[in-house]
């Protein structure tokens, strides 16, 4: 039932073939693990006869109905570091450290012969980069904590869910929808859990039966899945290959903690975008206005053709580039009415308010970064960095009656960016209407804050007040990184 496999090097992964029978596709699994897992993984616990809820949902509804007999159970592989040992008689795991800190996640293997890698949550920290890319501390990945029950131990792994497409009953788009929705159900109590077969059914108004899903999904089907799951899908399509605003908002939504269902129309492929990697350095000083997307080196995807956290260069060719993505769906919560396109166009206009703030850095010397968060998160951010702010500004942020969701726009010079700081921050109302000319709650730099009264419609200039700030001239105004987890290479 349990078998311990010690790994001195990745070549030892070949021993898995003796423990994993042919219907679980060991050859392909071994190849993927060799190419994708770092040497920090020094042991695998093989858990046989594992009942996997996602596989069972497809077994009951599809595989059990076939003439060829399929096993109802799966194998689960658990990954550990060198400090963990296993006693096969006592069925106990030992480590001189906290076991949970030495656990790198799991991978379910399905007995389906093809596309056998099922529900998996693997830590990004042990992902070996492929295609020459290197895992670095500049990577930011959307993760959630997933509970794992093993031998009476309750373990946790922080990562993003992934699985292979089944090929016969699910395709890349199903796998991407499943990954995103499983992340939502683990990360937010608001969303229920959907199994693989549920996703297949959610694409259609009726059960198509048979092999219909393997003929592919359309973008509209993916949109329908997210709508059925209780989210509010927002569908954004590139207008032309030079549409920089498309990529800037793609990055902004990921930066906000929303994984994206993304499509490469030219090859009919879908994947989930779950993170990005900053460039190692940024021009300092900056010569012309830049956006956060300009500081991004690559995006990180969960693509069912690879192990999770595949690095995709902005303009590479292997296996494809961020530049070939031409549409995405972001599964938003309700009450985000002001789209990223509006923020993207509004942000440069903030410099017209510079006279009211007593000055801003020159527009051509800054990087603009924008993302969605909540009013509560803003208050928490400020509370944990009280020394950065004038107490009057803290009082203001605690008092303003923010709507649940807000857009943040941060303005940073090249010098600020290099230090992880900013020069000014605007807080926009994410429930604002497209035609509002002042969709703000707050805009401040180190000297002045502008407050906007949104309790009355059409308040105009009467709805703006100025607050002089003191004591912030030399404080570190920190760039707000909150939603994504920096990768810690093991």
């Amino acid at each position, binding site marked *: 039932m349990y078998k311990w496999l010690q790994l001195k090097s990745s070549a030892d992964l070949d021993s898995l073939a003796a423990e994993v029978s042919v219907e679980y596709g060991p050859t392909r699994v071994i190849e993927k693990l060799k190419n994708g897992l770092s040497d920090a993984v020094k042991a695998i616990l093989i858990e046989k006869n594992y009942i996997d809820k996602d596989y069972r949902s497809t077994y009951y509804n599809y595989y059990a109905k076939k003439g060829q007999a399929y096993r109802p159970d799966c194998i689960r592989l658990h990954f550990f570091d060198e400090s963990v040992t296993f006693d096969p008689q006592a069925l106990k795991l030992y480590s001189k450290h906290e076991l949970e800190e030495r656990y790198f996640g799991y991978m379910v293997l399905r007995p389906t012969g093809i596309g056998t890698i099922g529900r998996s949550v693997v830590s990004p920290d042990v992902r070996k980069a492929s295609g020459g890319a290197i895992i670095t501390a500049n990577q930011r990945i959307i993760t959630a904590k997933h509970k794992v029950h093993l031998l009476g131990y309750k373990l946790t792994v922080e990562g993003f869910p992934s699985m292979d497409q089944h090929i016969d009953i699910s*395709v*890349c*788009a199903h796998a991407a929808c499943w990954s995103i929705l499983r992340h939502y159900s683990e990360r937010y109590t608001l969303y229920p859990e959907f199994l693989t077969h549920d996703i297949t059914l959610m694409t259609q108004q009726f059960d198509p039966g048979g092999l219909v899903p*393997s*003929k*592919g*999904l*359309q*973008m*509209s089907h*993916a*949109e329908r899945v997210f709508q059925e799951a209780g989210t509010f899908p927002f*569908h*954004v*399509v*590139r*207008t032309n290959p030079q549409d920089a*605003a498309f990529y800037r908002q793609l990055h902004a939504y990921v930066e906000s903690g929303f994984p994206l269902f993304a*499509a490469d*129309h030219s*090859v*009919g*492929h*879908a994947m989930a975008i779950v993170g990005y990697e900053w460039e190692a350095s940024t021009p300092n000083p900056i010569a012309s206005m830049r956006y956060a997307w300009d500081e991004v080196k690559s995006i990180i995807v969960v693509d069912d*053709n690879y192990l999770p956290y595949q690095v995709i260069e902005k303009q590479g060719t292997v296996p494809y580039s961020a530049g070939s993505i031409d*549409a995405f769906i972001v599964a938003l919560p309700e009450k985000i009415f002001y*789209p990223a*396109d*509006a923020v993207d*166009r*509004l942000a440069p*206009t903030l410099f*017209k*308010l510079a*006279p*009211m703030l007593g000055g801003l850095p020159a527009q051509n010397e800054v990087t603009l970064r924008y993302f969605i968060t909540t009013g509560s998160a803003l208050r928490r951010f400020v509370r944990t960095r009280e020394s950065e702010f004038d107490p*009057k500004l803290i*009082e*203001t942020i605690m*008092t*303003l*009656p923010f709507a649940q969701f807000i857009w943040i726009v941060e303005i940073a010079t090249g010098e600020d960016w290099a230090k992880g700081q900013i020069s000014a921050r605007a807080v926009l109302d994410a429930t604002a209407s*497209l*035609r509002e*000319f*002042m969709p703000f709650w707050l805009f401040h730099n180190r000297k002045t804050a*502008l*407050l906007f*009264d949104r*309790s009355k419609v059409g308040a105009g*200039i009467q709805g*703006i*007040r*100025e*607050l*002089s700030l003191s004591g912030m001239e030399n404080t570190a105004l920190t760039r707000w990184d909150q939603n994504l987890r920096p990768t810690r290479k093991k």
Partner: protein
Amino acid sequence: MDEKEAKGVFELIDGLKPVDPQKLKDFEKTMTEEVIPEIVDIIEERKLKAAESRNWQLKV
């Protein structure tokens, strides 16, 4: 409703000053004449593109 709730948000924060309306003029003009029409146009264009893309097949 207590007295505090009845007050506007500006009355709850000390040290606020009105702003010079002249300093808002350039921003208001740019927003009204350039930025908002651009926003409305791009949202409309993206809606049309989204409608076209809904039949894209995804199956690799």
